[in-house]
């Protein structure tokens, strides 16, 4: 069933309420849940946190809408809590990291396939290959430090293979900024895709910055530091796709539309009945937000909100494996780099990026260290009799 953002009223803001007990619901089961349920939970936590981040920034600049921002932001903070608290305590930070990268790979692939703008789709494929490599590095770390198989989290939906090597993903900041869409001409779906990826990547960056220091293993700490740096690049990249000429209310309306689009996609694909009920409730709340912000938009800007969110959305985000698509992108585009707004062959990257990368990689390359000689194997590399013969990453690099 299609999503009509301005026709479906949802729940009015004054009826959007939570008890503290609701904020900490029973969790999903790490080992029994379908991986897509975990993926949706992780993504929606990121979408909510991105809206809250935007709302705080807007409140610092625009006094006239502070009250509405505060009221909706509180609801969204509670929505985020309720969703994030669905994750169970036995899911370790590293296991959750594997979930984060599965989100980054599968959601980015889904959006790249649906994206009507060729340039934006190319940027999504570009970012996809980098998160794909992060998954491989974290899976190697998990196997080699904890003796665990990351596939227990991924459930076979997502490949564990090297992508564009993390050590070559480091770029000068000016080579992470992309060309924004034109807000007067871009489709609403393009805008919602970009916002979805900003939200996903921003929470990934913040999560790694929070949990990275909690690891005891030096290689783990170094890997999180390295990949957090790339996630900051990704936030910069995706954020720069959003037209800075959009007004604050236009951006706010798009954020609310993005949340509704994502919750609707969750409702359409969720297989766990209890979690589906949560998505349905959240969708109704977001539709209420869309209507509130649409009214503000019309009041302050004297424009029809349907100029911004006029579309009927027919296709939800697909939560399904994109194995063949990702492999095809890997074959064709792993060698790409960036020069300013444009994607170029890596050998054509600007000198500023070459120097930046060489300096950052000069002493050690944790992402190479943890995965030296590592290849995914069901049950981990120790599951084969010769598993111990694989040289340990640390000894190989230090020798």
């Amino acid at each position: 069933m299609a999503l009509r953002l301005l026709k479906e009223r949802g729940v009015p803001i004054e009826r959007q309420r939570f008890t503290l007990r609701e904020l900490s619901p029973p969790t999903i089961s790490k080992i029994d849940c379908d991986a897509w349920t975990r993926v949706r939970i992780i993504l929606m936590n990121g979408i909510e946190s991105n809206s809250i981040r935007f709302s705080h920034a807007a409140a610092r600049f625009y006094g006239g809408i502070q009250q509405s921002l505060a009221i909706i932001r509180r609801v969204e903070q509670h929505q985020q809590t309720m969703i994030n608290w669905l994750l169970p305590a036995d899911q370790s930070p590293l296991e959750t990291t594997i979930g984060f990268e599965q989100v980054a790979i599968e959601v980015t692939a889904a959006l790249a396939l649906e994206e009507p703008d060729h340039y934006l789709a190319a940027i999504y494929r570009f970012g996809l290959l980098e998160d794909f490599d992060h998954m491989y590095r974290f899976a190697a770390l998990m196997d080699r430090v904890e003796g665990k198989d990351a596939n227990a989290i991924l459930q076979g939906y997502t490949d564990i293979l090297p992508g564009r090597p993390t050590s070559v993903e480091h770029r000068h900041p000016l080579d992470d900024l992309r060309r924004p869409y034109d807000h007067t001409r871009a489709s609403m779906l393009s805008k919602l895709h970009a916002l979805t990826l900003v939200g996903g990547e921003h929470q990934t960056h913040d999560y790694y910055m929070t949990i990275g220091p909690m690891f005891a293993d030096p290689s783990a700490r170094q890997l999180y530091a390295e990949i957090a740096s790339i996630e900051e690049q990704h936030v910069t990249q995706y954020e720069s796709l959003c037209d800075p000429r959009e007004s604050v209310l236009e951006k706010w309306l798009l954020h609310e539309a993005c949340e509704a689009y994502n919750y609707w996609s969750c409702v359409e694909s969720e297989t766990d009945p209890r979690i589906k009920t949560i998505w349905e409730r959240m969708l109704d709340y977001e539709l209420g937000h869309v209507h509130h912000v649409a009214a503000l938009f019309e009041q302050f800007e004297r424009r029809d909100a349907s100029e911004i969110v006029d579309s009927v959305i027919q296709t939800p985000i697909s939560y399904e494996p994109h194995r063949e698509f990702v492999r095809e992108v890997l074959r064709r585009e792993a060698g790409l780099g960036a020069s300013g707004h444009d994607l170029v062959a890596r050998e054509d990257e600007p000198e500023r990026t070459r120097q930046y990368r060489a300096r950052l990689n000069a002493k050690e390359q944790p992402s190479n260290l943890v995965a030296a000689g590592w290849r995914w194997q069901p049950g981990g590399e120790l599951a084969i009799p010769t598993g111990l013969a694989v040289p340990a990453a640390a000894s190989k690099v230090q020798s």
Partner: protein
Amino acid sequence: MKPQLPNVTRPGSNHTGIALHPDFAADMLQGTEEFGPTTRGGADQLAENRIRVAQISQPAGTMPPTLDVPIENLPLLDKLGARLQFERTGVRLYQALISKLDAYGTFPGGPSRADLEQIRDEEHRHLLLVQDIIEELEGDPTVVTPCANLQAVASRGLCDVLVDPRTNLIECLEAIMVAELADHESWELLATTAELMGKSDLGPRLREGERTEAEHLVKVRNWLVVASQLATKAVD
């Protein structure tokens, strides 16, 4: 090579105890008199809350929906899955312990590199043994069974101690001791479970695993006794 014991055999700069600041302690206690609790009751309220949430919670996990596995094998496969995961992690723990020996050296009467490599290899053989048995029982060795998952949670801190670059060989042997105690008991329980289930063909193989784990336990215990004596002498 870094020295083993200086952090516990001479005074350092630990700031955690209140006795270092008796004036602060008195001030803080005075504060608790003036600003008392805002809610009546005690720790039993946490217990009541745990019970309430337990009553609405589902199990942390279940066995997979495998159609080919005889249902009577499931409890044994759960325990075998736990040993398999523990041995996988155990190999990684001993690899980390060997790094400690390489970084900090050993001590008189302590393990040699060959000693630790032998245990690491035996843990790996146990891993392969359990993997084979799971497959013989038509189970899937890649499954994280409920028991495997809970044991992984229970032993999470051991890995943290072993891979922390600041911990020395002796400190890590203490963490390994906890792992070996749990491992030995679990092998014993596993062999007993198999025998109770009438899996007489598995009994001897699992008992062999238990015997090897008992040897590990004895070795680690002896190294720790020697280390303890060294620490005492260092203080003398």
